[in-house]
């Protein structure tokens, strides 16, 4: 926050700094999602295993999807003022 204090109007700068961080967080999440759902990471789940009776591949897809949504929810609701 020290750089904020140096800015012309700290009241205006401070939220934009956190907004900036929020945007970066979302961009990182987007990149992660894109990677997780495509070649080659997608193939990692293609195993002869079952989770609670559900084959690993579809289970993993839904699980990763759910985790991404949870992270998105956390990131979105956290910054709500």
């Amino acid at each position, binding site marked *: 926050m020290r750089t904020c204090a140096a800015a012309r109007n700290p009241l205006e700068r401070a939220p934009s700094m956190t907004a900036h961080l929020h945007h970066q967080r*979302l961009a990182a999440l987007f990149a992660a999602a894109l990677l997780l759902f495509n070649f080659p990471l*997608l193939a990692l789940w293609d195993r002869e295993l079952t989770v*609670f009776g559900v084959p690993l*591949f579809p289970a993993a897809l839904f699980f990763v*999807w759910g985790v991404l*949504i949870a992270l998105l929810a956390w990131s979105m609701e956290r910054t709500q003022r």
Partner: protein
Amino acid sequence: MLSAPLLVGASFAYLLMLFAVAWYGDRRARQGRSIIGNAWVYALSMAVYCTAWTYFGSVGRASTSGVWFLPIYLGPTLAMIVAWMVVRKMIRITRTYRLTSIADFIASRYGKSPTLAGMVTLITVVGIVPYIALQLKAVASGYAVLTTLPGEAVAAAGPWWGDSTLYVALTLAGFAMVFGTRHLDTTERHEGMVAAIAFESVVKLVAFLSVGLFVSYSMFDGLGDLFARALAHPELRPLLALEQGRPFTYEQWFALTVLSMMSVLFLPRQFQVMVVENVDERHLRRAAWVFPLYLLLINLFVLPIALGGLLHFGPGNTDAEAFVLSLPLANGQPALALFAFIGGLSAATGMVIVETIAVSTMVCNDLVMPLLLRTRRFGARAGGDLTRLLLLIRRTAIVGIMFLGYAYFHIAGEAYALVSIGLISFAAITQFAPAALGGMYWKGGTREGAMAGLAAGFALWAWTLMLPSIAKSGWMDTGFITHGPWGTTLLRPEQLFGLTGLDNLTHSLFWSLLANITAYVAISLWRTPSAREISQALLFVDVFERTASSGPVFWRGRAQVSDLQPLIARFLGEARSQSLFEAYARDAGVARIDQIKPDAQLVQFAETQLAGAIGSASARVMVASVVEEEALGLDDVMRILEEASQLRAYSHALEDKSRSLERATAELRAANDQLKSLDRLKDDFMSSVTHELRTPLTSIRALSELMVDDPKMDGQQRQHFLGIIVSETERLSRLVNQVLDMAKIESGQAEWHNSEVDLRALIVKALDTTREMFRERGARVELHAPEHLPALRADPDRLTQVMLNLLANAGKFVPRGTGHVEVRVRSDARGVTVDVHDNGPGVPAEERALVFERFRQGGHGVNRPAGTGLGLPISRQIIEHFGGRMWLEPDPGQGACFSFNLPWNTQKNPPAPAEAGGGDTP
């Protein structure tokens, strides 16, 4: 099977219910108690993305290729992750400039070009027709499944009047008209429709989940059992793995993800509910994760239902798209089947209603109106209220779109699965992405670039995807697909320029987007944009930096209120126009509408209001026709921008100034208040001192006069009076000394002779001094102190003064004969604490806060002990000067206990006059 009347009756009942919800939503909106002003309703309305395609098609897809139904929902999830950046910007732009549709959005960005708006509309209509056909097909085949006996073939198509699809189409068109074009209010928002869509989203989710739970837990013994049986089945096992006999086509997976990511942003119905109907940007925070969560939930049971159907009906069953209906029906659950049908109907209805409303708005504003307004009858200078005409055009457009959908259903529908039809539409909509996204983030994009990109992309989409789909349905010769047009194999639509190895969707998407983006970027860079394009680019890209009120207005010319107001009235109605201009006049600070200054701001206001009704391109044309405008050059645009930013800088500076002035005023006021209160304190102090001086003087004077008047006074009496006079004189001198002492300490002029002080020795000495007084009163004094205390640095005389004062105070209040005073000294790492505890009456709770105030003496009347009322305040000041604290123990048991505490580090407090004051002194 279910009887046809039951099915039709239930369907109508459901549609009427939707209508009731919409009616209620509209009513609440009119009362100003909107029910859609809620993040959850907003998120649910976005689920209009899930159509009959999701409801029936996903299961069909899963039954042939496993998890391949998923990319269509992963794409929107990706889009929602960046929604806070992208969608929020779309919302802000749309709100600020009152845009009505995706066509309006793109056209407005590129200089409010009517041509571009028309182009986007045409592409949308062509692209969306298959999608509407899909909904009709889904409802019609669902109806057929439920009303046909098991095993019996679905009846062959009868004459056209017996075709249930036609009636479905007509019914849905009717509802769309009722929902979207019920009002004469032609502005862009439809609150009731949004409420109905949110409701519809809940119904389809619950219905689908019910079927899923039924299949998983009633037909099978839970998910584990279902998957175990599928895994044991050699034909079904591959569906649950990545590769299904052939290598996994990552590029197609990726293409589908991108396709759906773009579609969720630019599909007319998504744009409508997500951007146009958005009430509050902040709702996006919740919708961004609730919408993907909805997608996850509705897909949760797709695989179980598909596998359950295949296990139940046997693999290879081609009618997998109807499993949602046929499974409950085949297992003796007609009620659930009916509910599932209502869910599917709900999905189709929601899509058709929003899509046709959105597209009809586009057709009306961007295709029909520009043409009509060119004619003499409806042209700019012609009068007449056009609001009814607008509604008529929109209604006709709805029927027209439905009819086209119906026609497509008959031409190509039978040959294609639901999913394939949907993807064709998605690919068309994706063509908007370069122009729209580029327009939001790149100021360099131009109108010609956007038009070239759209044209190229659309042409390649039509050639590589649309035409082959029609040809494959048997309506055209498929020769051009296998051999190329006129035998030119290089131009074969599904292997364009000899590109092979891609499935036809990925192939089409690759070529169309490549051509689209290349043309958009290349032409944009090549051609110089016009001033209007530049100004719109600035307004779009930098939308977060300016608001509508403070932004620059790129307009110059002469206008008249008397021209603009009737123009608005023609499209928005007389009453609304009047209230809009009255509101504008109020904001501008003038009393009457005719006093409004007809400047650029007003022209922009009028144009924006008009844009909400007829689209920005038509609004531009209309406004331009009633005002005299000067053409702006590039330099003008830059200058206006410069002025606006200077103005903004000025207003920032002004705000800063006024803020600092306010701060200064507040400081001055606070200082003044403090001075006033100090003045009052001083006044009170003077009054108290006067009172304290006059009281002994009164006795002295009265008694002296009595003795003067009576020289023969009895000797004993005289002696008594003289004794009183002497004691009152002592009281006076004590008072004068203490007032002076107090004043010195408070003004910082007291002298402090600091040295190392042995506190224990000091207290012992003070006890010696007061021993006589305590003995006289018959009181016992005890000292509890450690033998060795570290030395303190302080003024020993002042500390002695404090000790004597506390002891004298205790001595005054202890009961005669049985008095007991205890002095305790405790030391710790930080300092030393001294308590003086007596067994007197104690201090009443209400007086505790006052004991350290000046001239507040404990006790009263005859039993008031001698004292000036300054001893405790002075003692406290002394202790505070040494960095310590003096207080009255709040709950000492019996009697009163005064304590003070001194820190060890007093040597660090130089006896600077400036800090000598206690702070609260005059």
